[in-house]
């Protein structure tokens, strides 16, 4: 066997090993979590909002709703901002401005989430408490922080999608007498739509999975929120908050929470793949 064939095999095995860690994690989470879902019943586990694990109540309904609400909030704040930023950078800015702004935005992605959380606690939370009421640690605080955190993801993928649109589309549109804004809105954006949707979904995945910053600013109360100023607990926060001490059924319940989270993320990733493939 020649050398390049050999190296190919080695690389293949290395690649396989990284996939195998995914397989192991999946098996592990399901093995640890499924017994509890079978024990409490899927319906009670997902729809009940009564979470008192040391007393035998394992309902994560409130946390599923909270996770989705926090993510929705982050989308409402982050997507328009990110998309606007991407359009400016890809369509309306000079090369120099783009060279300056894009690395800055990528820096945003490099800031550790605990720093976002810390900023949220010392700056955003008191702001909400003093001006809007409530304890400050709230759904709104989590959504704002997450909205900022997903910006780099949304922006960089949207820019890629926009720049992938061939220039002949723009030229053709301008030649037909459309203004630049009309060109962007009617031609470029529709042409880049699948890439932009991918950006939004990946941003969602980031928002659903974020833990540290959310624990710090969301307040972590275990009930269904009735307003955006009330504290909420997301699925990820629940696992991270309680896993340190959990044993027996409680531990299984946290792994089962992980299963639900896993499935949500899988659905998001799968839909991204579907959308990009259609393109």
């Amino acid at each position: 066997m020649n050398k390049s064939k050999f190296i190919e095999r080695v690389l293949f095995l290395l690649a396989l090993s990284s996939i195998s860690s995914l397989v192991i994690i999946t098996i592990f989470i399901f093995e640890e979590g499924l017994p509890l879902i079978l024990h409490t019943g899927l319906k009670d586990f997902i729809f009940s909002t009564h979470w008192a694990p040391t007393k035998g109540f394992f309902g994560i309904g409130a946390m599923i709703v909270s996770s989705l609400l926090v993510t929705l909030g982050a989308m409402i704040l982050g997507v328009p901002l990110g998309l606007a930023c991407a359009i400016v950078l890809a369509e309306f800015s000079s090369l120099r401005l783009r060279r300056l702004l894009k690395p800055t935005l990528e820096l945003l992605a490099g800031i550790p989430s605990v720093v976002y959380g810390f900023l949220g606690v010392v700056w955003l939370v008191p702001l909400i408490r003093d001006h809007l009421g409530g304890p400050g640690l709230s759904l709104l605080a989590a959504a704002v922080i997450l909205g900022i955190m997903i910006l780099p993801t949304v922006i960089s993928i949207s820019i890629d999608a926009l720049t992938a649109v061939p220039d002949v589309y723009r030229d053709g549109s301008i030649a037909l007498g459309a203004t630049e804004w009309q060109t962007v809105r009617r031609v470029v954006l529709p042409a880049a739509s699948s890439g932009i949707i991918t950006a939004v979904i990946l941003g969602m995945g980031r928002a659903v999975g974020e833990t540290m910053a959310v624990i710090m600013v969301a307040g972590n109360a275990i009930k269904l929120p009735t307003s955006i100023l009330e504290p909420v607990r997301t699925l990820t926060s629940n696992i991270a908050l309680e896993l340190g001490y959990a044993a027996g059924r409680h531990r299984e319940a946290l792994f089962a929470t992980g299963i639900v989270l896993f499935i949500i993320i899988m659905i998001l990733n799968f839909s991204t793949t579907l959308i990009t493939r259609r393109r």
Partner: protein
Amino acid sequence: MSCFPEKTRPAPERQKRFSSVLGLAAPTGRLLRWGSLLLLFLGLLPGLGGCKGGGKAANHGLCIAGSTSVQPFAEKLAEVYMQEHPGARIDVQGGGSSAGIFAAQQGAADLGASSRELVAAEKSLHEIAIAWDGIAVVVHPSNPLNNLSLEQLRQLFQGKITDWRELGLPPHSIDLITREEGSGTREAFEHLVMGKTEFTPSALVQDSNGAVREIVAGDPYSLGYISAGLVDEQVKAVAIDGVLPTRENIKKQVYKLVRRFLLVSRVPPAGECRAFVNFILGPQGQHLLEKEGLVGVN
């Protein structure tokens, strides 16, 4: 190495593989090796955590596991003890009071640390009280509240009192803060205040004494509970049934929210274990605990 003997295993495996890559061995054999590494990894996963094996053997040091409330103090004590007794090895691990008691029963840990009292089924263990700790109910310094009855405190955390008006103060909703499920402080608070009733799900949940104190320090309408040793000028401790959580009141147990920090063991401590326990109960260990904010037993 007493607590994690498994951890050392993969190293020679890795070396072997590396040398075989250099030697250009047949790829089919490698597949098998990858498989075996994978199995090894799988085998390691459940083995992590806990003081399995080793802990009991002579010359392998002591293993203390249990309450996360006791853990920082036990670590401090172990650190000083090891400095003074070169050659002694003490491993301190968390896991929670119940886990620590269980580990001591099984003999997986030499000493279990608990921040709650033993229940009837656990009374066969030897218990050594090492310190008292009060749980202080704290509010913002600007809050005029000075006293709460135990009953009011219970109703607060049951969610029956939700407005400061009900406590005779200007009306504003109360931002209640509790600790996460499994925390030793929460467990003790639950035992001392809540009885069989549940915490209200509306309460904010924070995962450390420090985080609770931080929020209370910033929010004029909040109320939470923290270890009495950690009360500082940022927050104000409230008297419970007219008694403030001072060192004196905790020691005399006039203050109601007091818990003991216990070390438990299956057999009466002997040898190194005895020496460490004596160190904790001796003037130096007790002084150390007092300095860290607890109240000594001697």
